[in-house]
Every structure is written in C-alpha cells, then in structure tokens.
C-alpha cells in the first residue's frame, strides 16, 4: 500500500520508494526497512506528518504517493 492511504497512529515499514525524487526521500531517512508512524494529517488531508528515525517529517501527496509501506 501507499503511505498516502496509511492510517493515523499506525506504524508502517517502508518497503520501497519510487519516482524521480526517491533519493531525496530516502536521504530524509525513509529507507527500505525503516519504520515510520503516521502522526496526523493536516486540515485539508495533506500534508501528512510522520515520525521517522525519531523526528517529525511532513510530506505532500506527491511524496507520500512515492512511498510504498506495509502495516506492522
């Protein structure tokens, strides 16, 4: 599943990153095998705030669409 469809307060394992910006996204710590938790969504649904490697990061839909995850 995509990070865009992830549920709030649920933990996920990052499976794969796709698209042109995959290096950028991985450099922020979202490497395959890392664990992230969806913290909340902004008022209009996006950006999505996640916790990854102990810090908080927000991503817009375009970026969350590029991240494949599976629930833990």
């Amino acid at each position, binding site marked *: 599943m995509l990070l865009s469809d992830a549920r709030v307060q649920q933990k996920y394992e990052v499976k794969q990153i796709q698209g042109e*910006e995959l*290096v950028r996204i991985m450099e922020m*710590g979202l490497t395959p095998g890392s664990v992230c938790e969806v913290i909340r969504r902004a008022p*209009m649904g996006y*950006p999505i705030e996640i916790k990854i490697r102990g810090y908080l*990061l927000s991503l817009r839909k*375009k970026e969350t669409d590029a991240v494949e995850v599976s629930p833990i």
Partner: protein
Amino acid sequence: MSNQTINVQKELLRQPSTIALVGNPNTGKSTIFNALTGLRQKIANYPGITVERKMGTTIINGVLHKIIDLPGAYSLNHKKADERISYETLIGSYDHEEKPDLLLMVVDASNLERNLFLASQVMDLQIPMLMVLTMSDIADERGIRIQSQQLSNVWGVPVISINARSKQCDVQIKQALVEQGVATPKPFQWNPSKPLRQAVERLDKEWLSEHTQLPERARPIEALRLLAEGSLEDSFYQYSEEGKAKKLIEELQNTLEAQGENPTAAEVVQRYRFIGDSSEGSVTKEQRDEQTWTDRLDNVLTHRVAGPVIFVLVLLVMFQSIFSWATPFMDMIDMLFIEFGAFVGSSLPAGLLNSLLVDGIIAGLGGVVIFLPQIIFLFLFIYFLEGTGYMARAAFVMDGFMTKVGLHGRSVVPLMSGFACAIPGIMATRTIENWRDRLITIMILPFMACSARLPVYAVMIAAFVPDKRVIGFLTLQGLVFFGLYLFGIVMAVGSAAVMKRIFPTGKPTPFLMELPPYKWPNVSSVVIQSLERGKIFVTEAGKIIVAISIILWVLASFPTYEPTASDLADMDANGQTSEQMISTLQLNQSYAGTFGQWIEPAIEPLGFDWKIGIGLLTSFAAREVMVGTLNTIYSIEETEEQLGLIERLRSETDPETGLPKYTLATALSLMIFFAIAMQCMSTLAIVKRETNSWKWPLVMFGYMTVLAYFSAWITYEWANTFLLG
C-alpha cells in the same frame, strides 16, 4: 568500527583561518554563528543567485578567524542552488567563496541518525573538523544518551556537546577548538559494500581523474552522485568525453544491479545502515511511553480545527503588536527627518542646493529609515516563532489551503505582513524554500492593501462616496473600503493561479518539511538576526531608494520657475498666499508637470486629468505622496489639508462643459488603480535585492501597471454607465 587513533591538529588555529559551519537546517547552526560573530556579520547575496552568503569574524586565543555559515542542507547530493554552494565551497571549487580550512560539523543530538547522514558525506571530503552536538537537553527529555567519546571513536573526529541556547555556547566551542583541536576524517568511514566501493574507484580512475578539475578528495563523493543519478546532467565542472562517461556509468550501474544492489539507492541505504549499526555502542535509548512536550503542544497547535484558528489568532496578535509598536517609532522618525530637513533648510542659503539636500536627499533617507521599525518588529516575531519551531507547524496547517491557490504553507505570514507593508513581507519570503513558490509569493504580495494606500482611499472615499447607511451599521463608504481590500486579495489569488501555469517549473523540489521539536529560542540570536535584516534593507535597498528620490526631486524642481510681476499680482488678486501659489506653479511647469500633460491622453479613458498624472509620477516615491502632491497642485493651505482637498476636488469643474471634473467614477477608477498599480519604488528596490536581478522588479512593474490600467478603465466605464448614467 574498531577504535582508532584520532589525528588531532591544534596548530591550525594559531594563524588566521576560515571556519565553515555545516549542518542540517534546525540544528542551532545559525544560533552558533550568531553567538560566535555577534554583529560582526556581513550578509549579501552570492552573485547571480538568491542564496545569501553569511560571513562573520570571531577571535579565538587572540587570532581573528573568518566564519562562514553555509546554507543548511540535508545532503551533499545537490539539487538546489544553496546545496550546490555548500558543496562547491566545501570542495573549494566555488569562485565566490573561500575554501574553508576547518569545519564545525553541527549535529542535532535529538535527531542523530539523519544528521549523521550529512556528516558522513561531509567527512568523505576529508576536511579537518570538530563535531558539535546540539540540543542535548531535548535528547535527554526523550531518553537519548550519547557517549561523545564513543561517537568520536567511530567517526574519527573530536566531538563536543553544547547547549546552543546557553549564553556561553561560543565560549564552549572556542575552548573545545583550542583544547581538543580538530581532526581530518578518513574517507569511507561508513564502510560501503565492496561492489559499491569498486564502482566508485573505477569511475574515479577511468573517468573523473582525467576529465574533471575536481580535487582528488572530492571525487568519491562526485562518483557516488553520478552513480545514483545515472547521468551527467547538472554536472557543474568542466568535463570532456561525455559519451565515454555515460557508457561507463551505465556499465557500473548494471554491475551493481547484477551484484544485488540498487544503484540509485545504494549510497543512502548503506550510509544509514552504518549509522544505525554504529550507534549501538554510542547511543542508548530508554523507551519512554510518556508524551514529550512537543507531542502535547502539537496535539493542540496542529489540530484540524484548533490549528488554523490558533494560527489566525497568532497572526492577529503579531500584526496588532507590530502596528502598535512600530507606529510611534515611525512617527518619531518622520518627525526627526522633517525637523532635521527644516533645520538644514533654514541654516543654508535658499536655493537649489538647499532644496536638493532637504527635498531630495534628506527626504529620501527619511523614506528609507521609516521602514525600519516594521521590518525589525516583523522579523523579531518571525525569528522568534521560527526558533520555537512553531513556523513549521503554521506552514503544515496552512499548506493544504495554500496549495489550492497555487502557493505554499509558508506564504501566509509574508502575505499577511503585506497588509502593513509589502517590504518586510517580501523580505520574509526567504523562509519559503522552493524558489518558484517564493517568487510567486513575492510577485503577488504588493496586491495586499498596505497602509500607504489608506490616505489615498480615505480622501477619495470621503470626497466622492456618499455617506449612506446600507444595512445595519454598514455604510456605503465602509463597504467600498472593504471592497478595495477584498479586491487586492482576489487579484493576488488570481495572479498566483496564472503564474503557477506560466512560470517555468524547472526541477520540482519535493515537499519534505521537518517539524523540529519545540524549544525556547536563543533571544540574542533572534535580536541579532532581526537587526541584520534591517541593516540589509538600509544598505542594499536604501541606495536604490535614495537614488530614485533624487531623480523624482529633479523631475519636480526643473526647469525652475521664477514668478513674474504679473503672476504675483494675480495671486494677490485671488487672495492666495504667494508661497503656496509659487510651489503650485513650480510643479505645474516642471518636468513632472510636463509628464502629466504628456500622459493625459493615455489616462483620459480612466477619468484622470494631467493633475492626477503628476500625482501618479510623484507617488512613485510612496503611495501616500499622492495626497501631498494634490495638495500642492491645488495650493491647499497646510492648516486645512484634508478637508480643504476634499472640498477642492469636489468643486473642480471642467472648463469646457462646466460640469464637475471629478466624479464618483473618477474616484473609484483611481482607487482601483492604486489598489493594484506598482506605485512604490521601495518595493521595487527590495524585490531587486531579494531576487538579485532587475528582471523581476521590471516584470512586476509592467504587469501590475497594465493590470491596473485596464481595471481602472473598466471601472470608470462601468461606473459611468451604471452608477451615474
């Protein structure tokens, strides 16, 4: 990962050296820079681009050193101009920056893994460094304990832990530099896999070493970048035999893939793997279930409903305070310059030089300094809120709304400050990371009805809009006033939508915004940065503003007018004081007056005559000057200013038809024109500074003038047909 001897160097600091601060954004890097340099800073744009160069000096053990604060970056894999500058400076190939002799690698202890990612890349460049851990109190709160000695052993550089918010953080750093020194890290400390290492070595040996001018120590990093990108695109160095390189990169990528590695991801994955493995010995983490302060605050401040409401309240408090704090200072500055002008005017013999000094130069300088209170107060708020971590939350909460109209979550604060004045607002767009979003925000910001438009609106509404009650307490005058504000916002949103379509996209940069932990900012750093913004405005935009005021003074003062005897007799007959009348005649027959006559045919369709034409020129100094110019044109006595002008405008008749010259249609047309025309040289000057080119201020002036012209024309026609017809 075995313990190793660290080759510490201490002699580097005995002679003047260049020290660069490197690190992720939000690590306290700027705070350290401000603590080390104080107000001994120089901030200017790098040539040709909009990235700011922050340079300062500091004294360590009696020796003066240069400090460069490199733009914060998450990776050396440069995609954006600021990251590229950091990278090029570090490898010593950037013409406009000195090669650093040693580095302070700033690392956020509460966010160690991601910070060490950049640190591991920088270490591959083998520049002597001291690693500075910041935010240890936040790490403590989260149960993270870092063994500095262990970390130092793993990475082969000295490590110190400081509290960037304490007043002595500069002392701590200086002491560490003297006592612990710096060490040159070894490359590939992160232990890349054999296939990756081989690929890097081959690319280096078979192509980079012969075909680029990169220093040897920078080649592995460049090789990694090329392998991940899979192309030569955006290589900034001189290279030859492109075809050979492309083939080689492709071949190496295939080899990596055959050996089970993803060539695009290999570097990132392996660095993070090493960081994760190595921190087992140096970092201990207590599992704590309790919520941190950040979690608790975020539950409220980024809440779906409460979040936007709180943000609006914060803005309200912010702008109300700026307004009420800045106004007395602005009044004081205004008075000081008027008094000073009057003093200079009366102590020098009357004449052209006197007038140039008083009406050209001193008035021009006053026009610069008057903006300082608003700029400094706005930036005190912005840097303070940025330092607490709240600004990122505000952007997070607002981003969904703002992307709907083609803007960015971080556009809100600059746009709102535009209601006070466009200048601090345009300076505040620097917080928007993406250049295109920032440019669009700058280009639409002057549509926000700033306070300088108020006097023009006030005179026109009072003179021509009937004071009728519409519903309840709402009057027609109030509605027109509100409508003008709304009109500005609508124009801003519409223009943003159009620009989003026509401006070149360039390389899209992904939206990956960090929400740093909440903390109490370092107050002196906030104050220093705000004062620096004021300094930048005065030194960089100020020059342009004073130059244009002198040009405007020339246009209004030449050719000079000498009253003839019959003119003086006429004045006496009309019962007007001659001084008032002389300045009227002076203006009317000056270049500005000629300009008014000259553009009259062009502005006639908008309902304007040559007198308003003069005002359009002179109000370029500042919009409110329109009122002063009309006062001069109509020889209004200073004592009866506003009422006098209103009466005079109402009673002005057309000599041919005998009907009133100015009507409600003229007033509406003029107000609409002022709502969108780029009638402000100071705004253009700051746009030049912030975009570092004359192109954007000229585009802004052009499109806003065209838009204003047609809007005013339509308004005039519409009002004549439907309101007066």
